[in-house]
């Protein structure tokens, strides 16, 4: 058996340096090993704060311990309580992001799946690790002049951009909008995408969604679970309206 990849390049053309949306293009995607065998889903993504305070994706997290917290803390606790003796179940399996060879409709690894997944064992002085799902569960406090619905705003997606002066990507902007119902299904990426019916409904539901550039005036408070956006921060509409009308 061999790794059977689509002939189509996929959403992240030029991995690992091209920008992409973490939720839309990576989260919940199928992980495939170098033999074409299926490993699991990208149940969560590990984000590490680098010394400059930038958030960098460092690993894919796999397994119930990564998936269940996304259903809520209660689901995870109940599951852990089922068999306390098997404590390793509380820790998700980790796939370092360097092992990802390419991202097409699946996440293709450069290694075999056997013995691949281990939990993270950190030494003293390790970097601060977060999970993407924690960021996605956060409330967003927007300034009143942002033009967005300031109530119930949440992080819907995280736009990753290539890092200046280093390989890989970092968190560049946050897609912020009403929490429910869910994401924009990719319709924010290309305004002309059909069918008209779904595209219109999604755009209407997300008419108040905004893209918040990470930088000055944007503070992610991991302890309080809040993203604070100050008045001067760069906030702009998600869909590029200039591409909409006739040229």
């Amino acid at each position, binding site marked *: 058996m061999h790794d059977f990849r689509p002939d189509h390049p996929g959403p992240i053309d030029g991995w690992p340096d091209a920008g992409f949306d973490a939720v839309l293009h990576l989260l919940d995607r199928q992980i495939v090993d170098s033999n074409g065998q299926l490993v699991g889903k990208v149940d969560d993504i590990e984000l590490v704060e680098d010394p400059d305070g930038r958030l960098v994706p460092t690993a894919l997290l796999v397994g119930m311990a990564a998936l269940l917290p996304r*259903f*809520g803390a*209660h*689901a995870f606790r109940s599951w852990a309580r089922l068999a306390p003796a098997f404590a390793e179940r509380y820790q998700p399996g980790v796939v370092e992001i360097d092992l990802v060879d390419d991202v097409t409709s699946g996440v293709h690894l450069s290694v075999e799946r056997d013995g691949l997944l281990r939990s993270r064992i950190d030494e003293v002085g390790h970097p601060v690790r977060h999970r993407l799902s924690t960021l996605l569960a956060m409330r967003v406090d927007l300034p009143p002049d942002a033009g967005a619905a300031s109530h119930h705003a949440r992080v819907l997606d995280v736009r990753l951009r290539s890092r200046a002066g280093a390989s890989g990507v970092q968190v560049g902007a946050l897609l912020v909008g009403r929490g429910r119902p869910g994401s924009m299904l990719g319709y924010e990426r290309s305004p002309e995408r059909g069918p008209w019916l779904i595209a219109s409904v999604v755009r209407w539901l997300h008419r108040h969604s905004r893209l918040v550039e990470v930088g000055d005036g944007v503070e992610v408070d991991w302890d309080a679970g809040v993203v604070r956006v100050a008045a001067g921060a760069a906030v702009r509409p998600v869909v590029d309206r200039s591409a909409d009308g006739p040229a």
Partner: protein
Amino acid sequence: MSRLVVTLSLLLLLVTGCLVTGCTVSQPGPADWRDQARQTLDDVSSEVATARLVLGQLDAGKVPSSYGVTMAADAEEAASKAEEKLSSLQAPASLGGLPDKVLSLIGRATEAVQQAREAVVDERYDVPHLRRELGRLHAALDRRKAAL
């Protein structure tokens, strides 16, 4: 997760609620009873016609006996189930002697279907008398249903 649980249980409650209210006749009024009687007459008439058709096809050698036996047994079972459903329903007093008449006709029909099944199992296919009887009952059931 708790939201999920709540949504799911609400949905489940709604569905059971609908089913329970939709599928029970608590105390049948005359109209309810007539509806059920019409339904039963329809069902039994269909089974009578089936039994007659199966006998005819067996006699013509168009159907192997195993197939005929299964069909005749199914018809008998369905007819007696339908009969039971109606007879277990409390008939409203205001209908007078009508329920008894209907039930006795249905009883005769079920019995004829049973005879048909016995004939099929015994491989007696040339039973013109029974076929005529089934035909008469079929017509009588339909007339009764139309008159209700």
